[in-house]
């Protein structure tokens, strides 16, 4: 706890990347069959969510 304010962009980025990692882990264990048709939107959504969080965070700070 160093008193720094919460960085919402980092939080969102961490959460969505963790979610993507979870999905990839499930794919690796065979629990789900992740084909490219599903992986591509997952990756795109991850990057999109991170960018959106960064953009909103910057515009809020401006």
């Amino acid at each position, binding site marked *: 706890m160093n008193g720094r304010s919460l960085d919402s962009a980092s939080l969102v980025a961490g959460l969505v990347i963790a979610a993507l990692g979870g999905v990839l882990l499930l794919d690796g264990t065979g629990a789900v069959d992740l084909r490219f048709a599903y992986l591509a939107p997952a*990756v*795109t*959504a991850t990057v999109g969510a*991170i960018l*959106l969080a960064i953009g*909103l965070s910057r*515009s809020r700070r401006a």
Partner: protein
Amino acid sequence: MGIEASTAAPTLRPRIRRDPERGLIAGVCSGTAQRAGIDPIIVRLAFVAATIAIGIGPIVYGLAWLFIPTADGGTIAGRLRGGRGSVEVAAGAGLLVLSALLLFRALGWWYSDAVTWPTVTAGVGGALIWRQWMSVPAGVAPADPGDRDDPGRGALPFLEGRMLGTVGLGVALVLGAALVFLWANGALNAAGDAVLAVVVVVVALGLILAPLWWRLGRSLAAERAERIRSQERAEVAAHLHDSVLQTLALVQRRADEPREVAGLARRQERELRAWLLDRPPARAGQSLAGALDTVAAEVESAHGGTVEVVTVGDCPLDPGAEAVLGAAREAIVNAAKFAGENGPIDVFADVSPQRIEIFVRDRGPGFDPGAVPADRRGVRESIVGRMERHGGRASVSSAGGSGTEVELTLARSES
């Protein structure tokens, strides 16, 4: 050694920079390798492997191209940026929409590649064009002669530099999407599909030209608003000329007659107030409020002094209102005669659908209402008697030295 390590300034590692000079495409791999201190070929192979394995190589490369700065510190995104964070928001939202489309496609909730992708592309192009056109203020017109000499601005002098580039990109996207749509549907090969081709071209042109039509409409609205403002200014100027300026001329001519000048000023003030409150003086003969104003002006002219009238609500001059008006006139005249020199006479009228109430207050020496001789009919008949004859009530309150207040109340018949 340990002391040295703890007191030395932390070594600042150089930020990652794109290196277009030595790069094969945009210098992303070259810059990354330089930052990592490895051979660029290793990074390039990693990108190729990522593309072959899971297909995200081009996406990552594109994002790196957008957001990694060159040696001069500028990024592509920074150059495109309108407001802080707007590019990231736009890119993020776009990618989320793209991921949704890809998901729908994977799930089979899909109409056709030949329709959806050109539509999405045309939508992006149209959005770019709209955004640029809408960012130009409506008042900006390509009619500044000073700008016509600038060859860089061409026929659309309010579009310049980056803005023109963005509009060009939008136009290219819309036209490209239209062509892809035609090609994917075979319309470019089959003469029988000429109608479809025409429809698509018309839609594409509509997307491009709609902002122009929109701007034209806005310009016309702005021009109309300006014309209305000019007319209002002219009307105000004419009114001031006919009223205030004429009065000021009269005041100059009669500067040696203070009472006359004061009367002129009061009349002008009242007229100006009525005009500012959008209360036409023509109502004087038709409504109680207008008639009270007229009475006040007449009393000021005849007896001097100042009569301040405040009215809340209004009603037509029916017999009841005329009775109240007559009583009020008598009260105002009395106040002007006996207390006009002691300050302004306040007249407050409150007209509601249920009743009419008028208060006339002066700051004179006051008097004893009970001591008024029987042969003086002013208060007794013209005020109290008149009000009672019409079903109303009048009360006179006065105490020595604190002025006099006459209260007139008349219930109105519901109509």
